[in-house]
């Protein structure tokens, strides 16, 4: 089975080709079927691989396909690496991906570009699998950029809306900033280790001592790459904008898979990061800051998808925080659980949006609990999971991270826990605003509200189950589990940060659970008891709320600090330097020659006397030369 791993990405690619070519000719049902079934086949193979790997003593298989690029001592094969880390990612990608494909059949059914959508989705899965499977940084980079492309295509899926198209472009460019960091990191790796293959780099790095400057630089650059892809400060603003894409896209790409690529990459390179404690510290700080900032912004958002988007950013921040403190297992655990519950949440939101005919503003929702029962219940599970209440999956993964943070730094822990409270608050705010109270839309619209079709609700249910029980793969020893995940990942993750002793862990859990419950209560009081509804856009807010509502003005600041100066520089370079100076010199040479010509031809005055005089002057000069030279 492992040797067939190349089929895993190939089959979605095949799906992309078939759906892409047949997008106008094949029927929607057929397209949906092809699009989903290819993913399912991949999923099936992935499952096979997973179990085979579990049974195999050798936990790392490299499958060589062909030589891709080679120049001098640089040789980059297209080869895949199957190990615990990638095999589990395969399951998530194909599994969650499959569910979302199914969901999309229902969600996108009325869209005229149905075929295009499925082909893009398949292409995305292909690139994501490539990213995960690559046995070297460059193959990883293909996937890395490829998912960026698909993200671009899918965000701008409804390209006739220019703001959507702009959002797509923004996502791509911001990713590219990170990609440059990644690429430079790879260059450093190549010059340091002479290879870009994981199997050659990590053994070498394992023998190095921490604090090596080059390694630190590599780690920093890779981290910048991860920041772009995983929407960390300061490169996070594209992700909320990316909600312009269809909701399944948000669920698949911008919640479950692509955005976690950064975490995957750092987890993959954990050997390098372990050698750069300072960079790890930076990662922790950035992650924490992202988590808090995004959580604060999420508090006041009114667009249901935006809330989820910021919560994604925030959760990604937690994952980075985990990476920063060395809790690779915890971070990766959170990746998995987050994939479940965040995909679920997005799909639920999609279901709501679908039901309300593309209404996304929570101010125009409310009271949908009865009308959309499946959606409500599944969403409730997702919300609890993300809020971190036991025994739902989010609780275990988040608390593992928090426990390690506590060991690392108490202040950071306090902030992180506070962020977790905020998470609980805004998630329940969303839930309450959407499903409780009275419907706030038009009466006419209310009548049309209906539960989503089976193709949409079944994935919801499946994901809800996973969100609920996903935590079992990482139940900590403190709770008498054996943390299957960390054992599974052990061959890849070399060092694991020390966990706190059980007593401390209990205390920490208690603090977070109590805090979360208080937050929920607070939300309950405000949005159900007091029936509070967020004020319209132009309404007056307190300064802090305003800051939150306007996303800390990040976009405006970037515009002012980067885009405008660059455009001004561009105009300056073009109009002044290029046209006036560089070209001016060239034209000036031409001009002065022609002026010289104008002047010089006047010497040819037509007057014989003058001509002869000039000749005589010439002769005199020549004779003078003769006189002087002898």
């Amino acid at each position, binding site marked *: 089975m492992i040797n067939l791993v190349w089929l895993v990405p190939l089959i979605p690619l095949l799906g992309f080709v078939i759906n892409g070519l047949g997008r106008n000719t094949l029927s929607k049902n057929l397209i949906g079927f092809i699009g989903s079934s290819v993913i399912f086949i991949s999923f099936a193979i992935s499952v096979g691989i997973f179990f085979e790997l579990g049974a195999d003593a050798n936990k790392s298989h490299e499958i060589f396909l*062909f030589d891709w*690029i080679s120049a001098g001592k640089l040789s980059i094969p297209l080869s895949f690496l199957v190990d615990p880390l990638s095999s589990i990612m395969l399951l998530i990608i194909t599994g969650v991906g499959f569910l979302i494909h199914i969901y999309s059949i229902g969600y996108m059914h009325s869209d005229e570009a149905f075929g295009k959508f499925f082909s893009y989705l398949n292409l995305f899965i292909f690139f994501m699998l490539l990213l995960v499977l690559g046995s070297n940084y460059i193959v990883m980079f293909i996937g890395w950029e490829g998912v960026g492309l698909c993200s671009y295509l899918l965000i701008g899926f409804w390209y006739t809306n220019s703001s959507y198209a702009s959002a797509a472009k923004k996502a791509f*460019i911001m990713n590219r900033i990170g990609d440059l960091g990644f690429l430079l990191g790879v260059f450093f790796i190549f010059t340091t280790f002479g290879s870009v293959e994981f199997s050659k780099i990590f053994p070498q790095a394992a023998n190095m001592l921490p604090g090596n400057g080059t390694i630190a630089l590599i780690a920093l650059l890779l981290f910048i790459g991860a920041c772009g892809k995983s929407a960390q400060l300061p490169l996070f603003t594209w992700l909320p904008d990316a909600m312009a894409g269809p909701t399944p896209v948000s669920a698949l790409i911008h919640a479950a898979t692509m955005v976690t690529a950064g975490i995957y990459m750092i987890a993959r390179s954990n050997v390098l990061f372990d050698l750069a404690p300072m960079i790890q510290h930076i990662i922790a700080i950035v992650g924490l800051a992202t988590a808090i900032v995004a959580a604060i912004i999420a508090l006041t958002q009114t667009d249901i998808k935006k809330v989820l988007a910021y919560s994604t950013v925030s959760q990604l921040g937690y994952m980075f925080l985990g990476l920063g403190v060395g809790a690779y297992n915890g971070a990766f655990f959170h990746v998995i659980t987050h994939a479940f519950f965040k995909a679920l949440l997005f799909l639920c939101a999609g279901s709501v949006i679908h039901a309300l005919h593309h209404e996304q503003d929570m101010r125009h929702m409310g009271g949908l609990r009865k009308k959309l029962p499946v959606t409500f219940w599944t969403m409730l599970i997702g919300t609890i999971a993300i809020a971190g209440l036991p025994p739902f999956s989010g609780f275990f993964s988040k608390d593992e991270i928090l426990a390690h943070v506590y060991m690392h730094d108490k202040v950071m822990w306090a902030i992180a826990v506070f962020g977790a409270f905020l998470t609980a608050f805004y998630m329940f705010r969303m839930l309450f605003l959407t499903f409780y109270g009275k419907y706030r839309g038009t009466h006419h619209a209310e009548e049309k509200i209906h539960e989503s079709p089976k193709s949409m609700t079944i994935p919801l249910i499946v994901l809800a189950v996973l969100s609920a029980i996903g935590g079992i793969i990482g139940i900590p020893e403190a709770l008498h589990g054996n943390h299957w995940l960390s054992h599974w990942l052990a061959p890849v993750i070399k060092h694991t940060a020390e966990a706190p002793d059980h007593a401390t862990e209990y205390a920490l859990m208690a603090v977070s659970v109590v805090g979360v419950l208080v937050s929920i209560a607070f939300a309950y009081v405000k949005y159900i008891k007091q029936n509070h509804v967020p004020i319209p856009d132009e309404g007056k807010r307190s300064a802090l709320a305003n800051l939150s509502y306007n996303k800390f003005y990040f976009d405006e600041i970037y515009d002012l600090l980067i885009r405008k100066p660059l455009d001004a520089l561009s105009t300056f370079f073009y109009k002044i330097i*290029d046209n006036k100076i560089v070209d001016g010199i060239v034209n000036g040479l031409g001009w002065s020659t022609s002026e010289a010509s104008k002047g010089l031809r006047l010497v040819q005055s037509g007057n014989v006397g003058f001509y002869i005089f000039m000749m005589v002057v010439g002769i005199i000069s020549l004779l003078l030369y003769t006189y002087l030279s002898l």
Partner: protein
Amino acid sequence: MEQLLLLLIFLPLVGAVVTAFTGSAAKHVALVSAILSLALTLITVCNFTPDASTQFAVNYPWIQDLGINFHAGIDGISMITVLLTNVLVPIIILSAYQHDYKNSNAFFALILFMQFGLLLVFTAMDAFLFYIGWEAALIPIYFICAIWGGKDRIRVNMKFFVYTIAGSLFMLLGIIYLYLQNPAHNFDIQAFYNLNLDSVQQSWIFWAFFIAFAIKMPVFPFHTWQPDTYTEAPTPGTMLLSGIMLKMGIYGVIRWLLPVAPEGVQQWGNVAVILSIIGVVYASIIAFTQKDAKRLVAYSSIAHVGLISAGIFALNTQGMQGAMVQMLSHGINVVGLFFVLDIIARRMKTNKIAELGGIAKQAPQLAIAFLIIVLGTVALPGTNGFIGEFLLLIGVYQYKVWAGVFAGLSIIFGAVYMFRMYQNIMLGKTNDLTIGFTDIKGSEKVVLYVICALIIVLGVYPKPILHLSEASVQQLIEQVTQKLTSVN
């Protein structure tokens, strides 16, 4: 085998003459000629052994008294450029199919004549022959651009012509100097390689050659002829200029500058790299706010070529191999871009970005093709652009870290201006102008499909191309480094 190369070189010339004397059927004749050339090229590639040797060599005495021989041959480096030329020329001719040029026989004859000149440049193993080809490629393009160009064509092309020829005359000076230094008094490339020049001499040679090549490429600050010329030229002319002709400069550096004046390169190479890198950043930034799409692509071309040039002067296998691939890729991509813009201009009578928009809705096939080309241009992995740019960046990076960092900015900037252009032209709502846009058809489809296919195939499986030139590049670098170490 000798006949093969002669046939390869002179077929376009024959084609040009025949085309010149056919009337309205000229485009078909020209296309047939170009396709025959392509077929010959493919035969050549098949018979080519990818080692460092010069193959299919012909060496006939030409102007014996001056030590000038018709000495041509193909090694891995030439093979790439010959391939580029003969792949692109049919595409370019086909791309002109929908146009109704006056005196089309002259038009196509000039294209084929230029092909002849280019092939001479790329296969010459004799400096004089190289120079002849160098100029022989310039004259037809001047006429193409100046006869069939836009409003300001006369002034713009005169500038282009004089600018480029200024450089080449100084190169001629350098060639003459080398000839005089050569005890055998000939222009043979091997003899030039074996010259023992001191570092001062090499510095002069470096500059004499570098200026010529830098103007051709163009490298900042010798680039100002280029945007105007690209904008004013008829699209096939722009394609020839950007797709093939600027590769002459790159090829020249690789073939004539590096091995002949290694010490000069050692001494001044950093200046060349700095200029190239400045060009990359500078041109990219300028491209941000261009209002005319053709001009935008022109500036982007400066940026891309700057990277190639930096990669060459980095003098390592990665950079050089990257340059080889990127020559091919850039040729294909830029031809594709200009063709798309031509399609748009022909339908909409404008290339002003602000006046366009929403074309994707009207022409989905064009939108896809355009997107693939854009992706190739911004070097997305899996497209041809990535292979070249990645190798170039890693090459430059190994030369100097800061150079790699600044050159790497092109990855970001390229995405910014390319996607800006793509969005503003293709996406958004259709406006009054673009509502009447019709999708591509006939020869347009063929051209775009071929280009897209090349972009992806080269991106996924670049090995054959890399393999073609690897041995030659390796040998060249060894030769240069050996020469340098023997001096130091």
